[in-house]
């Protein structure tokens, strides 16, 4: 669990930054998750006060590998999602794919950092998706599913049913925010 939490911190913050304690919560725990808020935040990968330098020294696995994992799964299982990237080199590990995957993970990181105001944190991204990108909402579920598969495959013993429920709810909230301005 510690490795999972810190892996996610590594992906969410620039190197050398301290993780911040979240403000008082309004994000509700899934009712099936019977634990305190601090434990929940750990479950979604949000830890409290990492030592400066920890991020630099303890990257459990490279972020690009994770991006390659979930991207490959998305495009293999749901080839229709490739229609949103006609201008991309979609070969595994391509620079464009890594760049875009990083943007996705950074957005998720912002949502974790502002878990009690995901709507505020992703407001601009929500407008981008509604008015410019107009990705069909069904695709967010597909991406979230592939992220969950990648996390499960990478951290099987940490990905307990409770963690699964927390992640599913969290990613679902992010997806809802990104599509709520569509109409």
């Amino acid at each position, binding site marked *: 669990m510690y490795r999972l939490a810190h892996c996610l911190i590594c992906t969410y913050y620039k190197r050398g930054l301290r993780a911040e304690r979240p403000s008082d919560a309004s994000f509700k725990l899934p009712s*099936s998750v019977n634990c305190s808020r601090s434990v929940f935040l750990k479950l979604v990968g949000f830890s409290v006060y990492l030592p400066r330098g920890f991020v630099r020294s303890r990257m459990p696995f490279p972020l690009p590998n994770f991006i390659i994992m979930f991207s490959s799964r998305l495009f*293999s299982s749901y080839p229709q999602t490739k229609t949103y990237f006609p201008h991309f080199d979609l070969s595994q590990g391509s620079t464009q794919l890594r760049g875009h995957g990083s943007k996705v993970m950074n957005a998720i990181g912002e949502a974790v950092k502002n878990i009690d105001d995901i709507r505020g944190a992703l407001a601009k991204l929500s407008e981008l998706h509604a008015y410019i990108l107009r990705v069909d909402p069904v695709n967010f579920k597909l991406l979230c599913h592939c992220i969950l*598969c990648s996390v499960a*495959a990478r951290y099987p013993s940490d990905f307990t049913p*409770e963690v*699964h*429920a927390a992640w599913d709810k969290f990613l679902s909230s992010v997806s809802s925010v990104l599509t709520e301005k569509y109409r």
Partner: protein
Amino acid sequence: MVHWSAEEKQLITGLWGKVNVEECGAEALARLLIVYPWTQRFFDNFGNLSSPTAIIGNPKVRAHGKKVLTSFGEAVKNLENLKATYSKLSELHCEKLHVDPENFRLLGDILIIVLAAHFTKDFTPDCQAAWQKLVRVVAHALARKYH
């Protein structure tokens, strides 16, 4: 009729041979009930489903999970004829059990996640793609006789 490539068949049957049906079935159903708690509505007579611990330890959940995944094994054995394989089960789920077919999709995706956790790097993107196709086709077959 669904076409399966030789590679897809190999990815499906090869993995299925290594699946512990009792364990994976129990885990898949438990996760369904935990991650999507509204699915508990179909299991009022299962006793204590009040917490993840209760669900995971519930013997009825384990038994039913094993039953569901055993039935899934029929799909693996009959990839070329899933409609016929699930015809009676489809009627049952519509007429007697009254299950929204959306739940077949949810359980299918949960099964994929359980397989990913059990087989880790062996559950490659290509393997996942073959299994996603299978769970989609099974869900479709189960919904086919709905009216």
